[in-house]
């Protein structure tokens, strides 16, 4: 029982990453009809917003300390971050410590801008082009973004820890009547889950309850008619692209402490996020979220020893296997709309 609860927690956590990425991807798919292979790169850029902010905050001046030696035997260069010298030890280090949550504020404008520039500068010209061309141009863009990040940050993962407050794990089992240490779960992963729940709800509320959202939903259903009503749908779609980029970026920022970011993490998620979106059904936001959580939970269950001992290697293929089953039993995924990306 405790093992099952643990894997449900794991599944929700994995699922929230999948759902956030798939949500952004499906906004672009569903609203703009663009196959965006650069979406994984946006997620990666989000993570590197956290890395960058951490670097900026720890910009340092260097003092040579003659009492210590570096590896060549020269006097050791000791770095002191400006922040620490400006605000004093306590405040300075606290700001450094909280660089990941602070990066959220940093990432929102950056990612909105990235999304805006990407849409106006490139994607705009590809709405009428075949999907194949969209794949080629966005894949090329993904490589370019990735290589630029690699040029500045190298290929090695960069540790981006969460604030000390969230280190360690919560003894979740004790709260619901289990013995100590039976169900423990890291604080930061719980934060990630709550964070993604908030973002997902916010996107849904935005689309459901604002006029802007209403127009966009109408545009998704029938772009031409909305255009005929004299509404400038293009401008709104640009904004939606920015929002999708920001959602992917935020997913990346908060993911940085879970796994140290590296330049190709976007590619690792790219294929998976397409599978999630399609399993959820094209053009359906709730479908994408549902599929994200479903696949996350199933993946966690498949990696349990009890399951693996019955079917060895099931954790290697579970996502793809489930995708096949679902697509064969439900022609348009879980909640797909008819006629979206079907030809």
């Amino acid at each position: 029982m405790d093992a099952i609860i643990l894997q449900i927690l794991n599944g929700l956590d994995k699922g929230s990453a999948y759902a956030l990425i798939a949500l952004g991807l499906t906004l672009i798919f569903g609203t703009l009809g663009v196959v965006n292979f650069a979406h994984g790169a946006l997620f990666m850029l989000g993570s590197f917003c956290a890395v960058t902010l951490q670097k900026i905050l720890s910009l340092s001046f260097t003092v040579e300390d003659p009492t210590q030696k570096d590896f060549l035997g020269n006097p050791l260069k000791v770095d002191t971050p400006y922040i620490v010298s400006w605000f004093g030890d306590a405040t300075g280090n606290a700001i450094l410590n909280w660089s990941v949550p602070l990066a959220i504020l940093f990432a929102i404008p950056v990612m909105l801008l990235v999304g805006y520039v990407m849409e106006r500068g490139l994607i705009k010209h590809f709405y009428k082009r075949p999907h194949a061309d969209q794949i080629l141009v966005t894949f090329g863009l993904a490589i370019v973004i990735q290589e630029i990040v690699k040029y500045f940050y190298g290929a090695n993962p960069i540790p981006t820890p969460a604030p000390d407050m969230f280190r360690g794990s919560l003894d979740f089992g004790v709260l619901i009547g289990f013995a100590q240490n039976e169900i423990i779960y890291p604080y930061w992963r719980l934060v990630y889950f709550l964070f993604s729940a908030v973002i997902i709800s916010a996107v849904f509320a935005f689309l459901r309850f604002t006029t802007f959202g209403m127009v966009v939903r109408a545009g998704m259903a029938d772009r031409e008619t909305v255009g005929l009503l004299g509404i400038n749908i293009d401008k709104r779609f640009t904004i939606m692209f920015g929002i999708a980029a920001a959602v992917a970026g935020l997913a990346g920022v908060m993911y940085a402490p879970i796994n140290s970011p590296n330049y190709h993490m976007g590619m690792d998620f790219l294929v998976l996020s397409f599978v999630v979106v399609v399993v959820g059904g094209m053009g359906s936001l709730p479908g994408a979220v549902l599929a994200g959580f479903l696949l996350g939970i199933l993946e966690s269950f498949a990696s349990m020893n009890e399951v693996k001992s019955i079917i060895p290697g099931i954790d290697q293929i579970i996502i793809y296997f489930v995708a096949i089953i679902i697509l064969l039993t439900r022609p348009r995924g879980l909640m797909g709309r008819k006629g979206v990306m079907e030809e």
Partner: protein
Amino acid sequence: MLGLSKKDTTFLLVVIFLTLATPILLQPFPESSALAQFNAGYPDLMQRFAIFGIFAIGFNILFGLTGYLSFGHAAFLGVGSYSVVWMYKLLNYNVVPGLVLAIIMSGLFALFIGYISLRRSGIYFSILTLAFAQMSFNLAYSVLTPLTNGETGLQVYNNDPQVLMSEGSPTSPHFFGIVMNEATKVDVGGWQFTFSNGYYFCAIIAIIVFYLSLRIFRSPFGIMLRAIKTNQTRMNYTGLNPRPYTLAAFVISGMYAGLAGGLLAAMDPLAGAERMQWTASGEVVLMTILGGAGTLMGPVLGAGFIKYFENIFSKINDNILHSWFSALPDGLEDFVVFVFHPFIGKGWNLTLGLLFMLVVIFLPGGLIEGGTRIWNAITGKNRKKKREDAAHHPKPTSHVN
């Protein structure tokens, strides 16, 4: 000739000439010159051009004609390679049994995957094929290691049965005694040309399968496939069931991929699981689109383009840059090297990514369109309208034989 129109015959002859003269054409710079770095006329790369050309031609039969975008074609590439290496292990190094098995196995595999995946269309089809290929890759890398040798890749060991192996038979892949990795080097002036047995073996097969695809493009079957791309619903209304046609196209293109995978192992007796990964599937998609989907020569050009950058640009390092620009004054030399540095060696991916974007932005029809434009510029615009690369952009009605 050979059941082709006059225009197609000329086209085929040009292709045959280009393919056979590749070892000379790809070696434009003398050995001693600094630009010899850009020569691509060495056996391994030429073989790759031919093999990935075959892969892309096959992929194009499915994607270019029917519009079904498979994202799992690498699975067939892998199956082909494993089949050939297994034949080496069990029989001997003759490539023929392996290649036959590769085509059969990949055909069967394609029949299975295609039968299931073609129940859906559009992106749903793409994801189904992707899922099958990724499952194959993940299993081949781990659980199926006894069959595939996992991470290390399947290779021949000295204690393998090799029942047909006799005293004098070659110890590397051969075609009835013609050993693949042997080559004749010819020095002409400052140039060195390498005529490799392996390359000509691949090249002849490539010409044959190119001819086959030309026939398919021009056949009633090809027209039917294009009709599926244009409007499947209307086809249904006329009482035609498109499924058997698309399935046939899928299996044919799977067999092409299996053949390509088999040839990879015929040139180099090793089969790695990475050949089945989604990046490999994605690569053939990129090759086809980059070159020009639906055209006959485009995918081959795309394959050559990507393989060229992967193999040539990744090998240029700062030392080579310095030697090129050593004539410049020191400060300027360093600056030029600094400017080029991000795009070469470890940055070859960046160059490739940028070129993808430039090609798709400025040449909507792919590389083949670039070729057409240059051709038109040379021959004069007035003929453009009528002939616009007729052989390459087959128009449904005018070219049926």
